[in-house]
């Protein structure tokens, strides 16, 4: 039955995470935007201690459940991420956890690999996982990946350069983490030759050469990592090492995104809600209340803008919940995950940019967080597949086209 009521356990998790966002993240949000490349260690330790027990921000894996046993895990994840990102999206992204690399291992790894790489997130000091896909010459076009993995006896040898690795420095250098690296084992095989490899922190030949200076989400490090004759054990490959004729293996790796795109969408919505809350509060200070029952032709421009922002954000939220809910049911959500990501990324970009306009000097001033939220928001329209890549996926799905037929 169609229902929009969050289950009690999800509501409780949301309330708890909201408290963290309000009391621990908001007060330091500006500070770690200004002090780029520094880490809020007190906050990170606190989050690590909390996540060791409950892991409120891990995602994916819902589809791996036994059929017929729906859970609310992914729904709870997107709801929690919205709250954390309402607190601060950069700080949320910097929280120690398995990250996208962990999601890839959860989706494509064997039971042994999941244990070997993910068990560490249950104890010890804070750790990070990261995923390295993008290269200087290619982003969305993952089939063009030039980083190579060559088999040499008991090892794979990686060579190449990866950029835009979220938490790459923390995963590769600063903690007992790992980086999941996408590389080709056979350039002539195109996509079928692309495989994912887990590289443990500190492996010789893996070097963090740069941490990017960014427009927003500055509390999160974005690394450039060079692999130079980087040798890793044979069984650090995720999935089948054979190059198949089909692109099944590649599709398996891409399936990671079905879990992570709703998470990105949820983060976007959290930022958008923060902006909307701020605008509403500032308007109310001046006695401006949004009149919902009044004819649109009699509303002020600000009321109309505000209502459009509110509706578009709520629409994005419901699309995101739907994508997470499908995963919780153990159903495919490739189309719905891309719909949610495309919608939420654009919605938060537009909502925050409009919010800055509506509040004039208050919006543009660094005295308030709104301008920061606008800068933070934009990344959601780009990472985990740009707006355009997600539209392409949606288009292929609704038209029944393969990537050959529509590219």
């Amino acid at each position, binding site marked *: *039955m*169609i*229902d*929009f*009521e*969050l*289950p009690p356990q*999800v509501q409780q998790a949301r309330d708890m995470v909201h408290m963290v966002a309000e009391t621990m993240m908001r007060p330091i949000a500006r500070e770690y935007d200004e002090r780029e490349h520094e880490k809020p260690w007190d906050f990170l330790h606190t989050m690590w201690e909390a996540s060791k027990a409950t892991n409120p921000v891990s995602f994916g894996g819902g589809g791996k459940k036994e059929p017929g046993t729906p859970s*609310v895990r992914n*729904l709870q994840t997107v709801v929690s991420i919205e709250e954390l990102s309402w607190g601060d999206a950069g700080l949320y992204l910097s929280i120690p956890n398995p990250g996208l690399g962990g999601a890839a291992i959860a989706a494509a790894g064997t039971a042994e690999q999941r244990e070997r790489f993910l068990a560490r997130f249950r104890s010890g000091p804070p750790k990070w996982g990261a995923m390295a896909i993008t290269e200087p010459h290619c982003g969305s076009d993952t089939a063009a990946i030039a980083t190579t993995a060559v088999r040499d006896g008991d090892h794979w040898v990686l060579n190449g350069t990866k950029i835009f690795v979220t938490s790459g420095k923390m995963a590769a250098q600063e903690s007992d983490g790992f980086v999941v690296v996408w590389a080709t084992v056979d350039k002539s095989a195109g996509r079928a030759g692309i495989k994912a490899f887990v590289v443990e922190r500190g492996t010789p030949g893996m070097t963090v050469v740069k941490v990017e200076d960014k427009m927003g989400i500055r509390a999160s490090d974005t690394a450039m990592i060079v692999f130079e004759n980087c040798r890793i054990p044979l069984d650090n490959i995720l999935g089948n090492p054979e190059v198949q004729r089909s692109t099944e293996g590649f599709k398996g790796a891409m399936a990671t995104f079905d879990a992570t795109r709703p998470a990105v969408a949820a983060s976007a919505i959290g930022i958008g809600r923060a902006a909307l809350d701020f605008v509403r509060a500032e308007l109310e200070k001046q006695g401006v209340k949004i*009149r*919902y*029952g*009044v*004819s*649109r*032709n*009699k509303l002020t421009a600000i009321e109309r803008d505000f*209502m*459009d922002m*509110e*509706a*578009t954000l*709520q*629409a*994005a939220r*419901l*699309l995101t*919940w*739907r994508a997470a*809910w*499908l995963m919780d049911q153990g159903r495919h959500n490739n189309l719905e995950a891309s*719909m949610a990501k*495309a*919608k939420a990324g654009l919605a938060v970009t537009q909502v925050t940019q409009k919010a800055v306009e509506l509040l004039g000097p208050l919006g543009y001033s660094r005295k308030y967080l709104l301008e920061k939220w606008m800068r933070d928001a934009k990344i959601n329209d780009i990472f985990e597949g740009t707006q*355009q890549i997600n*539209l*392409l996926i*949606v*288009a*292929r799905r*609704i*038209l029944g*086209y393969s990537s050959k*037929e*529509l590219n």
Partner: protein
Amino acid sequence: MVSFEPSEEQQLVRDTVAAFAQEQVRPQARASDESGEIPASLVEQGWELGLTQALIPEAYGGAGEAHSAVTSALFIEELAWADLSIACHLLAPRLLVVPLIEAGTEEQKRRLLPRYTQASFAAATAAVVEPRWDFDLASLSVTATRRNGSYVLSGTKCFVPLAAEAEHVAVFARVGNGDEVGVFLLERGTAGMNILEREKNMGLKGLATYEVAFEQCRIPTEQRLGGAAGCDVNRLLNLQRVALAAAAVGVARAAFEYARDYAKERKAFGVAIAQKQAIAFMLAEMAIEIDAARLLTWEAAWKLDRGEDATREAVLAKQYAANMALMVADRGVQILGGHGYIRDHLVELFLRNARGFATFEGLLTA
């Protein structure tokens, strides 16, 4: 517990109406738009679906099923997908029956409801919109003034569906000088209620709508919906908003599907135009926005079904769906290019109908 899946019962209603919509209603869409007529046989077939009678308590001859805005949103989308004019015609009796079920006194129900459980279609309607650019549900210009134990209605309504044949008209009017709104249940032929000429609109041409003028129209106080104290008119308006939002989703989906199918057939530069990103991306955005509006609509309907105030949700869903439908229908025409402008294709009809949602109020109710 969050779920995006209709119940089995809801799915059955949806499938039944969808089959009727596709097989019986859609083939008639163009002809009705051209002639302004809807065949009586189609109206009777639509009546047999029981979408109105189902709500009426068994005591008055109906099926006594629970009234659900979510279920209504599901079947309204299907009928509007097939044709908006025909959907509004078939569902017009609900404009009276739903307010009665929601807020009528026992006496009002007993007197009026049995008329709508007969074997044949009986027209009823609601008079909500007024012919002015600043028409506002929150401050109506049609007034109901208390005078000597009666109400006197005055002012003019427009977009009143089936007014000429309606057995009863539910008139939304401002009571007194404040912002109180009342609903008044008028019988056909009431003195002072003048049904003017049939309207000619840009779209919705298959639906007979009328201006209705009230001049010294005196009615007993018992004809106020809910009795002397009136009723929660806001809830009735929200049910209408949700219905229009669902209809907008239906019209948009019709335009989207038409354009999608065309784009896969039509070749340019050696491939289907759908294989070009310029077209494919338009279609992708249309699909996303249709789902977005549908979910907002369902959420507002769900809130109404829980008996909560859903003014904010219903207003936002309706506005969002109205804007969305216009955008989607316009792109539908655009994707067909010159052919989209020719009346051989339905997309221009969808665009004319979609433009109306910003203006439409009270044509449907969930």
